[in-house]
């Protein structure tokens, strides 16, 4: 083991470790705990190395540590594909490299890795708080880079940080410039995120328990701004998914191909498809714009019955919106909705009817039996619906903590437990309808949302909801929400008003400020933060949506060469201003002194003739140098120099005018 030749100095190490710790903390929420522990050990080890108390790891130990890390990563993640295992791998390499810093170049590597790892965090979280923290991290890493270049001798401990701040401040105009003009490029690759399930929100299947799980989370789902006033709470049904297939326990999407219509998605800008004719839209549409959090899925949410108003958004055959790409980052889209509508009133084709009447044979015999009995005793479909709703209204309890259900889940729910969450009600209702021969489907999405004082709507995971749609002769698809029969406050107000006292509500978001909304000032603070984050999402993260229009307004048209020209123009202008700013103070200092001004005039004159004055070159050296190559000027130059020197340095009364005249009389022709 050779001893390290290069030793990092104290201040350099200090900043390096500070930056290291900041970068690790930045990623702490998606790194396994043992890496955090390893990072701590690495810091201690590094400090002990500096104090020469411990020895650097030998080759054997290094190999062992590397093996341990790899094994830990495999145990933690299994597959190396995905963002989180890759970041974890990089971080473990980063902390091992910290122990291996034998040369200056190793320290550079550690710092550049830190820059990269810091930037990676933006893939996980782009909220305003996290962005500020990332900037803070960059500042510290920059300070570490500067600290590496300084020495202990003549610098204060904090000097690198001050310098880093200056550099960051200087980079600010460039950052703004790039932000405004640089076209946003879509991701060239996409890596699946490991934690998707926790962040997806509503999934494309519905089993008992799914929605009650969401009821425990206060995480943000999406935010909506309406062009006009926000409609009443009970009409805010955010349609996301249509679930038509039931296997006895789980409701899932029926594949679109079973509709057998061609062109099942009508993208924004496409000509209307034939199936667009079967919807009857009446009255004025509501126009709204949604900023949705990343879900890794393609479906979007809109009020019934929607039409997309943004590029890359389409309307599907079952009248919901989807995105052209999975939502890997926040997305903003606009849509129009017609609250008064009739969906397929003319009738269902036999295939569709089959899809919406499908039921597995071997489940829930009691429900089937009851359905056929009631079917015979009522005069029409509407009466059957009100009878079922009355059933729900009589005995049922709406709760986040429903009992577990066995094989015949609908039977057990309807006849035994009678306690459930929205998925139980919607699922059992649709089952009942189908059993009674009425085409029905489950619609999943969100219901309601919190009105922010700044006039937009915040929809959180606990607003997730499922309801039913049934098809009635002459009316088409009609929304029926059995939950409304059991817990009308859920629909008219929000979940908290029904379940606020249940311990499971928000159980997964213990620190969520929503929990404390009864405390006045805290609620105020929460709304402020919420509003800040929304505007951040709208104007900074969503800028690419505005960019095209903005640039068109600014430049007249947004062809690439115009954008490039604008960037170069503004950038060049900034640099020019910077240059002027750097030159000006010195110039003005100079202009204070007439003698010096005359001397500078002489310098300019000689520079034009091809003899620029060097930095630090004194007048005598300079004129002698020029006279050496241009002997015909020697006499005059000596005279001017003598004059300048005596006035300037010998304390003779300055006579700038005579000097000016002499310099003026100096005739220099370029060719000589």
């Amino acid at each position: 083991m050779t001893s390290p030749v290069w030793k990092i100095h104290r201040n350099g190490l200090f900043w390096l470790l500070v930056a290291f710790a900041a970068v690790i903390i930045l990623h702490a929420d998606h790194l396994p705990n043992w890496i955090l522990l390893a990072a701590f050990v690495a810091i201690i080890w590094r400090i002990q190395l500096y104090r020469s108390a411990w020895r650097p790891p030998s080759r054997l130990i290094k190999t062992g540590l590397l093996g341990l890390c790899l094994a830990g990563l495999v145990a933690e993640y299994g597959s190396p594909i995905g963002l989180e295992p890759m970041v974890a791998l990089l971080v473990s390499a980063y902390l091992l490299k910290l122990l291996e810093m034998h040369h200056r170049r190793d320290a550079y590597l550690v710092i550049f890795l830190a820059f990269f790892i810091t930037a990676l965090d933006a893939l996980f979280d782009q909220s305003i708080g996290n962005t500020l923290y990332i900037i803070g991290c960059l500042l510290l890493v920059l300070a570490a880079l500067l600290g590496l270049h300084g020495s202990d001798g003549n610098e204060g401990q904090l000097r690198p940080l001050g310098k880093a701040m200056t550099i960051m401040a200087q980079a600010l105009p460039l950052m703004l410039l790039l932000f405004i003009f640089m076209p946003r490029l879509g991701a060239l690759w996409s890596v699946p995120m490991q934690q998707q399930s926790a962040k997806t929100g509503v999934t494309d299947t519905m089993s008992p328990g799914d929605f009650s799980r969401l009821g425990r989370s206060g995480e943000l789902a999406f935010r909506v701004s309406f062009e006009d006033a926000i409609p009443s709470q009970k009409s805010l049904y955010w349609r996301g998914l249509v679930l038509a297939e039931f296997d006895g326990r789980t409701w899932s999407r029926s594949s679109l191909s079973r509709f057998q219509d061609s062109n099942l998605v009508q993208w924004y800008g496409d000509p209307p498809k034939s199936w667009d004719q079967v919807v009857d839209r009446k009255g004025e549409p509501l126009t709204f714009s949604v900023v949705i959090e990343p879900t890794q899925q393609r479906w979007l949410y809109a009020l019934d019955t929607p039409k997309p108003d943004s590029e890359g958004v389409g309307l599907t055959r079952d009248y919901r919106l989807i995105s052209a790409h999975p939502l890997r980052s926040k997305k903003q889209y606009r849509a129009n909705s017609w609250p008064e509508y009739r969906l397929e009133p003319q009738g269902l084709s036999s295939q569709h009817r089959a899809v919406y009447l499908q039921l597995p044979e071997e489940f829930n015999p009691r429900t089937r039996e009851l359905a056929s009995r009631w079917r015979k005793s009522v005069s029409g479909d509407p009466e059957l619906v009100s009878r079922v709703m009355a059933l729900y209204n009589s005995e049922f309890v709406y709760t986040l903590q429903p009992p577990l259900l066995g094989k015949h889940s609908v039977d057990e729910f309807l006849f035994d437990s009678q306690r459930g969450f929205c998925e139980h009600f919607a699922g059992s209702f649709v089952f009942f309808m189908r059993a009674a021969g009425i085409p029905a489907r489950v619609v999943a999405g969100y219901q309601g949302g919190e009105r922010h004082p700044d006039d937009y709507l915040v929809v959180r995971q606990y607003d997730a909801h499922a309801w039913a749609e049934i098809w009635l002769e002459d009316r088409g698809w009609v929304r029926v929400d059995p939950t409304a029969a059991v817990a009308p406050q859920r629909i008219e107000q929000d979940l908290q008003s029904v379940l606020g006292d249940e311990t499971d509500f928000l159980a997964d978001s213990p620190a969520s400020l929503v929990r404390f909304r009864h405390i006045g000032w805290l609620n105020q603070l929460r709304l402020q933060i919420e509003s800040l984050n929304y505007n951040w999402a709208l104007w900074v993260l969503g800028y690419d949506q505005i960019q095209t229009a903005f640039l068109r307004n600014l430049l007249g048209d947004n062809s690439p060469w115009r954008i490039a020209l604008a960037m170069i123009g503004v950038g060049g202008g900034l640099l020019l201003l910077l240059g002027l700013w750097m030159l000006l103070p010195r110039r003005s200092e100079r202009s204070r002194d007439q003698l010096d001004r005359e001397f500078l005039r002489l310098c300019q004159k000689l520079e034009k003739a091809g003899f620029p004055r060097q930095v630090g070159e004194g007048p005598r050296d300079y004129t002698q140098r020029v006279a050496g190559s241009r002997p015909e000027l020697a006499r005059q130059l000596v005279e001017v120099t003598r004059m300048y020197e005596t006035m300037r340095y010998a304390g003779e009364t300055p006579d700038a005018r005579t000097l000016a005249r002499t310099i003026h009389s100096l005739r220099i022709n370029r060719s000589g």
Partner: protein
Amino acid sequence: MRQVVDKLVTSIGRVLIGKDEQIRLAITCLFAGGHLLIEDMPGMGKTTLAQGLAAVLGLSYNRVQFTSDLLPADILGISVYDRNRGQFEFHPGPVFSQLLLADEINRTTPKTQSALLEAMAEGQVTVEGETRPLPHPFFVIATQNPLTQSGTYPLPESQLDRFLMRIELGYPDPRSERELLSGVNPRSRLAEIKTLLPAKQLLQIQQHVADVKVAENLVDYLQRLVQFTRDDPVFYYGLSPRGALAALQCARAWALIHGRQYVIPEDIQAVFPTVAGHRLRGAGECANQDGDVLASLVLNSVDIL
């Protein structure tokens, strides 16, 4: 004044061929009242220059060859018991002279080197508890080998700072070397050198140096030079105020020996490398750079205006 200096230069130039610039700088140093350090490889004429200067100025002159076993008492002097008179008698060492030539000063141990320290700084020595003044004027001209040479003890920074100037001689140009090789050994002419500037006149000149005018904006220039060495990361540490003062003093003397009563920027530039060179240390990429290179870096980075 110019003629006087020119005469001095030609006179010494006869024993040290082709080094007029360095001779002029050495004279500047003595006029400015400072001690001189001459650094170069063995056999480049360091001792010859020192001896030539001593001869021309007609100062009482002692030479000490510094060796590794030299003791402080060998320089300062020692009290010896006189049996006849029954008391101790002080025998002054070679330091009690107007010009002390400390040859190869970095061959001796730090202990002995530091014995010179008080003498150089205070113009007095303390031996066995008794402080004794040194003659006036008192100069030390020290020569040393570059530190890369074996068997040397580097002078500590504190001692380097006592020297007003450090000059390097460098190899002679081919023409001078030819003259040197074809003629008689110039060193033999040392004995022929006559005193050209008596000590009394030297003291007068030293007073004149203080009268040389330095314009305000030249002080600004010097301050900028000094500030640059303190701010720029190329330097491990910057010039001390004593260093700045030394540069100003030398620039004055340089102006004077060129027959001017005022300093021009070129004066500062001419003496700056020799004054600042041994007081600067590079850091970072310039850690191993020669002092002269660092000094010219300063001069090329700071404008005179």
